[in-house]
Structure formats: structure tokens, C-alpha cells
């Protein structure tokens, strides 16, 4: 994982720097393609695909399924790309399986247990490692290297992201992490030009904003910081710990933080609640997403969102008032302290071990990463890609712009490592439970820290 830091740093920096030569929002003309930016020049996609065409399932009709999650715009883009694929290979039918993120993993897990999962699947980075408890549960893509051009991803990238127990479980699309998206209007109202870069200032702002709030939100409370739901708060805490200690969640089955260190973070958390910087447990209601009224009505100073979700969040903010949003790094624990942006590979695409047409699924995978028409259709719907052809095309099209690009720049220049097990279905519920117990005041900061450390440690112990 350490190497992943430098790796992604290099790749994306090169790309983003060249991509945003001009003002962030202007699209680059296609002619401005910078060959130097891509580490290894990509094959022209059409050529790469041509020889295999006739061989694709020996011309036999086949139906495969491709599952992904996302919002409507991603659905439309992917369906457009699949249509291109099916036009080109009329004997292949791709059954699209798509929906929102909620429930996606639950469904996938049951399908895996029943061995009825889709043929090509979009998964999260963490699942690749967590689902088999260290063993690969997907098709080893090394066995498909005659179909998938694995050189699209550098050897190191493959080694340090999606290689599980010696097998290549899938291929990563890009990199992602959460950044602060702040509400310029509210900040200006209280005399802040940008989002505070440390907790002292944040809580000063928080107290100003929270003045006059009711203990149960009747629809006019305001908060300086409104992390949407337990997932967001969890990463808030992990980032605070990381900024304070420079250490990640766990390594080799051992938790890397002492109870004291975690307690210190819970105490600051407590101050945030006491000052009204973030809502109390009772003040925060469902839904825990971009359609929460507090966010939509501009009653929060900031949210903490995945870079890939910036537009999704922005489109719901004051009916899409993107101009009044800014992005910033998560604040430091003390003025001048470290401000890391914890990040991980974004989506990973995997092929099922139980597919009846693994070659066709692998072929579609390769198509989505290398075919120019497909990449144009996909646009920036999956975020900034890391693979050669896709990133070259993304740069040429100027697909990334505005807030999303700024967000990416923040990630790239402030690398923070996110543990592959941070979303593990056995570990994460322990953190959620500790945070929830703390927020509901049924335990104090010390007890919360003990639970946070010990419950995860005992899950780690049970894994081995």
C-alpha cells in the first residue's frame, strides 16, 4: 500500500497537471493531447480490439450480465457504452444490472454465496480484499491476459491494489477519497472566506453557525459541518486519527492506535457536538445522503464527500447552485498540522469465477477500458481513470473539470493511505457501533475509544 501512494501520486499528478493547464472549467480542445503525460503510450483502441473480434465467443451467441451502481447519469452513460458494444458484436447480449449503492453489497454477497453473481461486476476496492478474507473470490485476470490488455495498468498498480493472494482479482478504475465540500454563502455570512483548515477555527465557526439551534431540528437549524451519515463520520474519525498520528487503521491483523490516541479524537468529536459544529445525534435525521434537507436547503456549512460524488451532492445543493460550493481539505487537528486526504483505488471491475462466458466478460471489460467510442460514451462518469488509454482519452476530452478536478488535485497533493480493510464488513460495524454509542451518550469518550480499538481487534483476531 505504501507504494500505492507514490504510484497514484505520480500517475494522477502528471495527468491532472497537464489536464488543467488552463482554467479548471474550460475543456481542453482535443488537439491538446499531451503524449508525455501517459506513462506508456496506449495502443489505438480499435486496433487492439480488431483481431479478437471474430474470435469473440467463436461467433456463438452469448448473454452476459454487467452490474454496477451509480446515479442516473452514470446509468445512461454505461448503457450507451454497452449499446456500442452490442452494435459491434450483435451476437453478444449484455444484460445491464444497475441501481443505487444502497443494498448493492448485500445483494452481491448473497449472489456470491449462491454462485449466481453477474459476469462482469463493479465492486469497491475494499471488497476485493474483504470478501474472501484474504483469498480471491473473483476470476484471476492473469488467466485472461490474452483478452484483457493488462499493460493498461502498470505492474505496480496491479500489485499494490487488486492483487489478492497472488491472483489479480480485478482492475482498478481510478482513485478516490473524501474531501470537504463547503457552502460559500454560509461561510461568508460568518466572515470566513474558505472552510477552516484546523479544528480550532472550525469550532469557532461552528458555534457561530449553531446559535439558536433547536435540540430537535424543526427545519431551520444550521450547522457548520454536516457529515452525511455513519459512513461519512467514520472517515471523519479515521482522518482525524491519521492527521494526528500518521498511522492507518491496522496492519497484519493489529490495530495501530492506542486507546489514548483514539480517546483524544473522540474528545474533539465531543467538542464538535458541544459547540454545535456538527449536529447532535437527535438533530440528524434520515436520509443520510445528498437529499437530506439540511444539505439541500443550504443549512449546512459543509459536507464530507467522495470526490466522485461532488456533482451528485452539488446538484442537490440549493437546486444545483454549484457556483457557491468550494472544495477543501479536511481540517488539521491543530493550526498548521497535517491535512491528509485519505484515499484508495475507486471502483474495481472484476469477472465472476462462475461465469459461463468468462472470455466474453473479460472482452467487455477490456472494451470498456480501451475502446475509444466506449470511453467517450462513459465520459467522466466513473471519475478520473488510471489506465493508459482511458486517461489519455479523458485528458483529450477534458472530461474532468471544475469542482471535481479541484477535488482530485486535493487528493493527489495530500496523499493519505486508506487501509484495504477499512470497509471490511466485520470491522466497520464495530466502528459504527462505537461511534453511535458515543453519539447517543450511552458511553463516554474513553469507553468509546476502548470499544473502537478492542472490538475491532477481536474481529481481527477472529479472522485468523
Amino acid at each position, binding site marked *: 500500500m505504501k507504494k500505492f501512494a507514490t504510484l497514484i501520486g505520480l500517475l494522477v499528478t502528471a495527468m491532472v497537471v497537464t489536464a488543467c493547464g488552463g482554467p479548471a472549467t474550460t475543456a481542453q480542445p482535443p488537439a491538446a493531447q499531451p503524449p508525455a503525460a501517459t506513462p506508456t503510450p496506449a495502443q489505438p483502441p480499435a486496433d487492439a480490439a480488431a483481431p479478437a473480434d471474430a474470435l469473440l465467443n467463436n461467433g456463438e451467441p452469448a448473454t452476459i450480465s454487467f452490474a454496477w451502481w451509480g446515479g442516473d447519469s452514470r446509468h445512461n452513460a454505461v448503457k450507451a457504452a454497452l449499446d456500442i458494444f452490442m452494435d459491434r458484436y450483435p451476437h453478444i447480449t449484455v444484460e445491464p444490472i444497475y*441501481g*443505487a449503492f*444502497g*443494498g448493492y453489497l448485500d445483494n452481491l454477497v448473497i*449472489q456470491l*454465496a449462491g454462485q449466481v453473481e453477474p459476469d462482469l461486476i463493479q465492486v469497491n476496492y475494499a471488497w476485493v480484499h474483504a470478501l474472501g478474507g484474504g483469498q480471491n473470490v473473483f476470476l484471476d485476470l492473469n488467466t485472461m491476459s490474452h483478452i484483457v490488455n493488462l499493460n493498461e495498468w502498470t505492474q505496480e498498480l496491479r500489485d499494490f491494489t487488486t492483487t489478492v493472494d497472488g491472483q489479480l482479482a480485478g482492475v482498478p478504475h481510478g482513485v478516490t477519497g473524501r474531501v470537504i465540500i463547503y457552502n460559500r454563502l454560509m461561510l461568508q455570512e460568518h466572515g470566513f472566506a474558505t472552510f477552516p483548515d484546523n479544528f480550532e477555527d472550525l469550532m469557532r465557526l461552528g458555534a457561530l453557525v449553531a446559535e439558536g439551534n433547536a435540540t430537535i431540528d424543526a427545519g431551520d437549524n444550521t450547522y457548520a459541518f454536516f457529515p452525511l451519515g455513519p459512513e461519512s463520520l467514520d472517515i471523519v474519525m479515521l482522518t482525524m486519527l491519521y492527521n494526528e498520528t500518521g498511522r492507518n487503521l491496522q496492519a497484519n491483523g493489529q490495530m495501530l492506535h492506542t486507546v489514548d490516541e483514539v480517546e483524544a479524537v473522540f474528545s474533539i468529536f465531543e467538542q464538535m457536538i458541544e459547540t454545535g459544529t456538527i449536529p447532535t445525534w437527535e438533530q440528524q435525521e434520515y*436520509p443520510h445522503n445528498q437529499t437530506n434537507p439540511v444539505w439541500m436547503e443550504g443549512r449546512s456549512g459543509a459536507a464530507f464527500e467522495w470526490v466522485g460524488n461532488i456533482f451528485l451532492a452539488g446538484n442537490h445543493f440549493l437546486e444545483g447552485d454549484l457556483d457557491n460550493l468550494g472544495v477543501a481539505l479536511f481540517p488539521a487537528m491543530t493550526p498548521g498540522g497535517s491535512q491528509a486526504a485519505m484515499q484508495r483505488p475507486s471502483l474495481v471491475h472484476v469477472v465472476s469465477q462462475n461465469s459461463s462466458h468468462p472470455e466474453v466478460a473479460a472482452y467487455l471489460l477490456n472494451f470498456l477500458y480501451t475502446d475509444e467510442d466506449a470511453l467517450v460514451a462513459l465520459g467522466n462518469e466513473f471519475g478520473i481513470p488510471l489506465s493508459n488509454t482511458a486517461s489519455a482519452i479523458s485528458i483529450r476530452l477534458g472530461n474532468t473539470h471544475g469542482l471535481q478536478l479541484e477535488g482530485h488535485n486535493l487528493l493527489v497533493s495530500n496523499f493519505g493511505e486508506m487501509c484495504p480493510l477499512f470497509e471490511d464488513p466485520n470491522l466497520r460495524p464495530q466502528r459504527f457501533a462505537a461511534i453511535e454509542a458515543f453519539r447517543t451518550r450511552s458511553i463516554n469518550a474513553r469507553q468509546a475509544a476502548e470499544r473502537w480499538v478492542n472490538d475491532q481487534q477481536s474481529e481481527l483476531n477472529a479472522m485468523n
Partner: protein
Amino acid sequence: MITKTQINAGLRYAILIAVGFLLAYPLLWMVGSSFKFNPDIFGNLSIFPPPGRATTEFYPAAWQLSPSNTMAFYYMNTLRFLIPRVIGTVVSSTLAAFAIARFSFPGKKIIFFTVITTLLMPELAFRIPIFMLYRDIGLLDTFAALYIQEFFAVNSFFVFMIIQFMRTIPRELDEAANIDGCGPLRTLIFILVPVLRPIIITVGLLTFMWGMNDFLGPLIYLNSPDRRVLALALRGLIQEYDVTHYGRIFAAAFMALIPTLAIFFTCSRFFVEGAIASGGKE
């Protein structure tokens, strides 16, 4: 002059009406809110939208329950497991109940005891092995996974209910048929089923209603979006991104309940009788 009896009666009616209103309120509020914009829904008790602020715009939006499919699609999917389930339950439960209620044979006590015992065992006790069973015979992600069991009289509640009902039917009826030379199956179909009609309808209706409410079954057994049923699609409303307008949630909830309500009110007599039969004296 108002008598004490009249006061008592008045008091009783007052209680009954108050309770009735309490029970109806959440449903009325749901219907009212489906015509309201967010600010009018919350913070007040009113069922009706403020004058001039009612809207019907959430109904088309709710009908389009997911980006890809309308409510009709999810209704059809629900029916695709519900109709076989109702048929299976009715047929297999009646057969089993007939055998237990109308014959004496070695092992009958044990069988009746088993029916009662499984009545007390929660469904969840069987869930994991049945999942593995379905996986091995390739039933996962098929509608059959949600109705195959019902063809084998596994719902002891209904078997028990029909047994109870059969006990109220005089045995002379089928014995006469027997003397006339009817075989057991013919006796059942031509003599008993017409008499059992009310309880059979009740069993069918209850199977249907409970099936409409079945959430966990489809959650575990149906994974493909083209087999998604109404209960799961409704959950998607709160879980997925667009809950911008609560009116849409209420409109969808209302539309999801309409068929159930309609069936209930047309057949309410069977429900009421069925519920009573299930508690019959043991």
C-alpha cells in the same frame, strides 16, 4: 332523561371511534401527504393540504418507481411468485388437513403433533439450509424459490386452520358420500370443498396479503433487477438517492397499498371469519 345505559353506550362508542381514528390516522396522513410539498407535510397534524397548495405531481413520479421501471412492472413481479404461492398453499394445505381431520390411521397423533410443533418454529430457523438447498438445485434468483415450499403444505398455520374448520363440518356429510362409492379425493373435491369454500378463500387471501408484505424472502432469493418485487422496490425509495420529495414516497406507499386494501374491503368477511377460525377452541 339520559339513562346510565345510554351513558355507557355513548362512552363505548366514543372509545371505539377514538381508537378507529387513531388507527386510521397514519393511513389518512399518508394519503394526504401524497398531495403535499415537503413544507406542508411536516410540523403539523393536518391531513389535507393547505388550500391551493395541493399537487398531484408525485403520482406519476411515484408510478415511475425506479429509473428503469414503473410500479406495474413491480406488481407483475410480485404476482409472479404470489399466484403460484396462493395456489400451492391452498391445494397442499387442504389435502393435508383433509387427511388429518377425516381419517384415523397409525401415526396421526405424531403428524398432528408435528404440525403444531412446526407452527411454533419461526421461519428463520430453516433459512440458511434452505438457501443452500436452493443453491444446489439452482433455484436461487428464480421466483420458484419463493413458492416451491408452499406446494408442500409447510405452512402449518393454514393446515391447522383448515383442520379446525373441518372439525365443525358434520362427518355424516362425507360418510354419506363414502357410502355412495365416492373415493376420498372425490369426496374432498365434490363434497367438502364447496363447504370449505370460506376457509379456502381465507387461506388464499391471507397467503396473498402476507406475500405482499414479504420483504426478507425476495431480499435473500431474488437478486436480479428484472425480478425485483414491489416490497424491495419500495425500500429502494428511501435507500436510493432521490428522496427529494416526501410526497413521492407517500404516493408510492399509497399506491402500493391500494390493491391490498381493495381486496380486503371486497372480501373482508372472509378475513374476519378466518381470523376467528384460526383461534378456534382447541
